[in-house]
Structures are given as C-alpha cells and as structure tokens.
C-alpha cells in the first residue's frame, strides 16, 4: 500500500547547519495496517509524515502509494490518496468558514471545481448524518463558523474531513497532543471507529506510549531519522510501556528522554 525506498531527507543541506533528518529509511506498510509511530523530539516522525503527504520532498529515494510513484507530486496532486490531521487544532479546518463549508471542501476533494453551487440539500443531509454519528451535537450547527468550536470539536471535524473522501492512507500527526486527556480519549475512540469503518491504512504519530501500544497493529519507534524498532503481532500485544522503553535503551544505548512521554506514562 505504502512503500518508502531508501529515503533521505536533509535540512539546510550543504550548509553548516545541515541536519540529516531521515536516514536511508525503507518502510513498507500493508493495506489495512494501523501503524503507530513513537520517538523523541527530533527523531523525524513529523518529517516522515510530511514526506509522505508531499509537504517536503525527499533528497533521495522513492515514495510509492498503491504502486504509484508519488515522489515528485506536490501535496494537492497526491491529496486524493491521503487524509491528514495535524497536531495544531486550527490546521485541519478553515476557521472562518462554516462547518458545512468545511465539509463541502472535503466532500468535493478530487472532483473538478466548477461554477456550481458548492452546497446543496443532499450534501447537507449527508453531513448531518456523518456529524450525528460523531455524537458531539455538531449536526445542529452546520452554519456555525468553525472558529467558534473547541479544540476537540475542531479535531473531530478535521478527522471527519480527512476521511470523508475515503483516502487510501490516513496520516495522523499527534492529533490528540493539544487536547485535554478526556477529549483526547474521545478523539482516539472516534479515530479508531472511523479507521475501522472505512478500512483505512493508517499512520499515527503519537507521544502517548499507551495509545501507541493499545491502538493499531504495529508500532514503529524512531530515533535520529531511522526506524530502530518495529514490533507487531503477538510480541506487540504482550508489550508494556516499560518493555518498550527498555528495548529502546538496549538498542540505542541511551534513555528514551522526552518530557511529554515521561509525563503521560507516569
């Protein structure tokens, strides 16, 4: 489904500040996989998602989605295959547009835009159904501007928008990190449900090690631009956060140090 072949990404290449962010990364994700990605700050998790989504282009290597080489395609040209939700709750929606206008953008994804009315009653009915399924009462607020919503509501809407056009791959970039624990839990449940219902291949970056192990079927741990640990199946099911951290120390001869991880796992 998704294949990265010997991908390299440098920042500030050929300057004193050069940083080798993604190092010879090769990764294969099967259709229907729900992969969680953990790693300390600067490990390259977000860069990885940015490379897949087309926000950055790799310096070397190939990125293939469903046998289609997308390495050189700009974001909007590969968007049809991808859905993405960001950490920043204001990034996944357009704040000064209404809920229904936001959903219309997502609904029209991949369709040529013309001089037709963007919204109609049939679409509104679909949106109301979809919003009712989320259970946050947003179906009664179609004409409210998204800027008025709370972070959690915006993130739920962003999730719905990312999955509405049934992408091949869903990219989640710490999409619960800016929410309070209770809301984060609701959003994670919603995520699991939408992924399950739409059979989406998913890549989720998270700082919450518990989430990393309890959601999905495969976990990657990244450090300094490489995947250092890749667990799935029985081994993963039995794994605890403690074991995960120990494995990391064993492999990299250093502690998995990261404030947010320590706080969220304590």
């Amino acid at each position: 489904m998704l294949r990265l072949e010997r991908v390299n990404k440098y920042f500030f290449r050929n300057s004193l500040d050069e940083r080798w962010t993604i190092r010879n990364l090769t990764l294969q994700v099967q259709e229907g996989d729900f992969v969680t990605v953990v790693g300390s700050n600067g490990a390259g998790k977000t860069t990885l998602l940015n490379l897949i989504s087309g926000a950055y282009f790799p310096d070397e290597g190939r990125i293939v989605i469903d046998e289609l080489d997308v390495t050189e395609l700009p974001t909007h040209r590969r968007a049809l295959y991808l859905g993405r939700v960001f950490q920043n709750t204001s990034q996944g929606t357009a704040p000064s547009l209404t809920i229904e206008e936001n959903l219309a953008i997502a609904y029209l994804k991949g369709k040529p835009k013309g001089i037709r009315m963007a919204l109609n009653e049939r679409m509104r009915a679909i949106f109301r159904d979809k919003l009712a399924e989320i259970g946050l009462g947003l179906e009664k607020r179609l004409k409210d501007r998204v800027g008025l919503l709370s972070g959690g509501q915006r993130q739920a809407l962003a999730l719905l928008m990312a999955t509405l056009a049934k992408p091949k791959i869903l990219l989640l970039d710490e999409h619960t990190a800016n929410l309070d624990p209770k809301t984060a839990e609701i959003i994670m449940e919603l995520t699991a449900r939408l992924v399950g219902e739409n059979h989406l291949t998913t890549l989720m970056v998270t700082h919450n090690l518990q989430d990393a192990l309890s959601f999905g079927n495969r976990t990657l741990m990244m450090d300094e631009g490489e995947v250092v640990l890749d667990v799935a199946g029985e081994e993963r099911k039995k794994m605890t956060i403690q074991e995960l951290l120990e494995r990391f120390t064993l492999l990299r001869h250093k502690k998995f140090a990261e404030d947010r991880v320590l706080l969220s796992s304590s």
Partner: protein
Amino acid sequence: MGVFITFRCLNFPDLTVDGSYPLGAAVLALLMYRGYGALAGIVAACLAGALAGLFTGVLHTFSRIPALLSGILTMICLYSINLRVMGRPNISLSENLGHRTVFVLLRDAFPRVPEVYLRFIFLFLLVVLVKVMVDLFLQTEVGLSIRATGDNETLVATQGIDPNCMKLIGISLSNALVALAGAMFAQYQGFVDINMGIGMVISGLASVIVGEVLLRGRTIFMATLQVVLGSVVYRLATAIALNWGYNIGFKPYDLKLFTGLLVIVILSFPILKEKLGRVK
C-alpha cells in the same frame, strides 16, 4: 469590492489595485478613441484588469515574491503601460469630442428621465448586479475554494486543491472588478488621468473597514453589503470633508492624509483595546 476579495477572502494585500484602476480607465479611453464604443471598452477594461491581476499572481505564486512587493511591482509597471495605452497623461471623454459614454447612451435611451436620476439608478443597479454576482460566485465550488485558501492554505492543499491556482483566479477577478470601477468612474467624470489610481488600495480598504464597523454579520451576503455600504459612507464622508471641511482648515490635499489616518486608527483599534484592557 475588488479590494474585498483579495484582502478579506484571500488574505492577500494586493497593491496592484492602484495600477489596475487607471488601467481600466485607460483601456476604456483607448477603445473609445478608436471608435469601439463604451460597452466594448468596459469589457476590454475588465479583461485588462484581470490580466494585471494575473501578472501579480504569477509574480507571487511562481516567482515567490512577497505579496506586497508583487503588487507594487505590477503597479509600477502599469504606470508606464497606462501612459503608453493613453498616449498622454490625461484624456478627455467629453461628449463634445464625440465620445458617447454609457451615461450619454442612457440619456439618449431615456430622454424623459432627468440625467441625475438616470445616473443614480444605473449605478445603483450596476452595484446590485455586481454584489449579487460576487455573492453567488463566492458560494460556488471555486468561490468556496478561494475563500478556504485565504483561510487555511495547508488544509486546502491536503484537500486536493491547488492553492496557487485559487490565488490566481481570486486576484485576477478582483482586479477585473477594480478595472471595471476605473472604467465606470472615467465615464462618470468624463476624463482619464494617469494619477487617478493613487491611494485606491487605501480608499478601498477604508471602505471595507468602515463597512465592517457599521454592519455586523459574517455571512457572504452581509460581508458584500458591508463593502457596498462602506464605500458609499466613505465617499460621502470625503465629499462632506471636501465641501465643508474648509471651515476647520481642511483642504482637498489633506484627503489622503485623512484616509490614511482613518485606516491606521481603525486597524490599531483592536490592539489598543486589548492592551488597555490588560492594564487593570
């Protein structure tokens, strides 16, 4: 209205306006001098304005020149282009020279209606027409995409829309409207002057802001209504200032200063309020 589309919908401060306004007037004058009539002139003016906007848009999206600078560059280029189109710094569209502007055409079509009313009714209808067209357009798929681009470019790209393409359409469209305004004003006052565009961006912006202060509401219908009302009030205010302002020592040449200060005050107001509010 043109300023509204770039500034509010696209979040793109477009200084092309200072050039595309006289461009519209100049192109109209050129066509009328060549004997093509006012209507052809108006259409050509809109097209020329759109082209000017497209140029700014390409500078910004393709060459990655910052928005403000792209607009200024086009504006400077247009100054020369306008002079070339016109052939001299100002042109008269006087009826005595055989030029039949839309207003002359109207007067001949309805000889019994007094000219003042005719002008008013015609301009009113034109404004309503433009407003309704813009309202409808902004609710189409393309219009919605343009608004979303100004709001959140990252999102638009991840939803499969090319933000640059939307910017080009938006900027072209707004400059077409500005050129239309220039062409209409030239016919209204009966002459074209190379300097008629100076300060147009700020006047437009002042109108947009005044409208937002006067009328609340976030829907498209309200937003465009704000722009129309804002323009009228702004023009009335300047007319009052020009006609009676001499009592307090206000001279016509103070007008730009007045407009500039007005925009500065209104733009600074929210920050000032916030700062004052925090000092408890």
